[in-house]
């Protein structure tokens, strides 16, 4: 009981701090926090696969990218409406996720990862070359849709955009947390622990993995939509596989199988990049890589796992 109320106290403290951020932070850091929330959502979505199901996706850039481009398509071709962008982005991400899920879940272990990687690169090439629809190399630029409900609308301010992103990320987190503790979520964790045993006790593992990939892809797509709305442009380099690699790094840094760990991982990664690129310019990845390796060796549970253990003592 004490642990449960401790969790909710922590939850509301963090939520309160993130909610107050745009009121107290200067413009640069406010933007920074909003962006970390978006990348954090992408990392969290990938945790469903890496941390809970035990399969590593190297294709999350495809889901992220399709969410982005779907939103951009809706905004440019139809109306500059936030909910329309959301619907188009989710539809695009879901379609791609279904496609990738169908093929990748036929394979196991590293072959699953390679399959997701190959598919994401295929989508990268399609987006890069299909200039009429995607803008090709230059991407697409559009106006930010206003925050709207039927009968009321206002242009986003930096603060309302931050709160909008914060609410979507929080709601998605709460939903995913519920899913990971549901009967379905427990099957995913059984697959992570022992795939053949999970089959033997009557679970059609492939179907569970397909649903897991789709769920994960949908949340990654949501992150892509938020990014497009925040930045008013989309570009093919967000669909490139180095984005997928960063997402895996966020998970390992922050702590897999915790949902919030990967968000923390994203925050640390961007803070490191921000701090280190001042001294190392474009070579900042070298110290970041070294810190990453030290984490893997000395904090195998990630930062959150480490912090949890310190707090419990």
């Amino acid at each position: 009981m004490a642990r449960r109320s401790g969790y909710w106290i922590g939850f509301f403290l963090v939520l309160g701090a993130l909610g107050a951020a745009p009121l107290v932070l200067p413009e640069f850091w406010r933007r920074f926090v909003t962006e970390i929330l978006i990348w954090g959502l992408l990392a969290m979505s990938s945790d469903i696969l890496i941390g809970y199901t035990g399969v590593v996706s190297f294709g999350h850039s495809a889901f992220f990218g399709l969410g982005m481009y779907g939103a951009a398509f809706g905004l440019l071709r139809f109306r500059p409406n936030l909910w329309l962008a959301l619907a188009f982005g989710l539809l695009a991400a879901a379609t791609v996720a279904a496609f990738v899920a169908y093929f990748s879940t036929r394979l196991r272990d590293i072959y699953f990862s390679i399959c997701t990687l190959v598919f994401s690169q295929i989508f990268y090439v399609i987006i890069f070359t299909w200039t009429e629809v995607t803008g090709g190399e230059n991407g697409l630029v559009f106006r930010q849709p206003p925050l709207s409900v039927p009968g009321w609308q206002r242009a986003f301010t930096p603060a309302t955009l931050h709160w909008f992103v914060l609410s979507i990320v929080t709601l998605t987190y709460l939903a995913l947390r519920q899913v990971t503790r549901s009967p379905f979520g427990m099957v995913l964790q059984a697959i992570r622990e022992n795939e053949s045993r999970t089959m033997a006790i009557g679970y059609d593992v492939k179907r569970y993995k397909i649903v897991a990939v789709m769920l994960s892809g949908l949340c990654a797509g949501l992150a892509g939509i938020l990014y497009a709305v925040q930045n008013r442009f989309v570009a093919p380099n967000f669909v490139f596989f180095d984005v997928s690699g960063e997402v895996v790094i966020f998970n390992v840094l922050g702590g897999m199988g915790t949902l919030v760990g990967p968000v923390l991982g994203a925050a640390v990664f961007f803070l490191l990049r921000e701090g280190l690129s001042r001294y190392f310019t474009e070579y900042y990845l070298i110290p970041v890589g070294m810190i990453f390796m030290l984490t893997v060796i000395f904090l195998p549970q990630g930062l959150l796992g480490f912090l949890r253990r310190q707090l419990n003592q």
Partner: protein
Amino acid sequence: MSADAFPSDRGALVRTEGLTMRFGGLAALNDVSLSVERGGVHAIIGPNGAGKSTFFNCLTGVLKPTAGRIVVNGEDVAGLPPHAISRKSIARSYQVTNLLRGATVLENVRVAAQSRHHPWRLHRHYRAYHQVIDQALAVIDAVGLRGKEEDLASNLSHGEQRTLEIAIALATEPMLLCLDEPTAGMSAAETRQTVELIRRIAGDLTVLIVEHDMDVVMGLARTVTVLHYGELLAAGSPAEIQADPRVLEVYLKT
């Protein structure tokens, strides 16, 4: 197919016809036709490499047999995937312990029991399904692992892990339970307890057991089937098998 097509089948729960499993040039099972009656303990014995585990792997869908049929309750199940076999009420334990090592004893058994209830619920907490948990606890109690519910499977002793293997299989409510060398590596006391457990289980369902310990086999089994280099060598009551000169020659002497 109707049950009448095989009038001699009455009472047979599982029947194989010409079951063959080849690995390259090696026939791990060669034209094995046998039947297992409903109820009680039935043993499969044979020297190492005789094809006993391969037989279980074919029966539980881990391997797709090269040829032949496996008829369960009048239905050919050969080549079905493991999860589909499980849903035909066939469960197994493994010769090499095969658990959710990072999960607790309770979770190992609970998730097995859950497969018969509401596995596709995504929104409610798994602990809200009391029936599944009660069922798992009842199985844990029945196999004698009470008090270990919250222990990680990887922290159990070898004997306890072997017992957990059986508990997981039982939690799926099978009518046929296949145990692959359940007492392997157990102490004499643990073996005695496991034999007692199997005897109790066999009151409610059919047990097919691969076992090396002859005392265990002869004390438990209603029928014994002998495999040798993938071939069916003999089948009969324990007394018949013990008296069979061919069996004595290839197996009991070594």
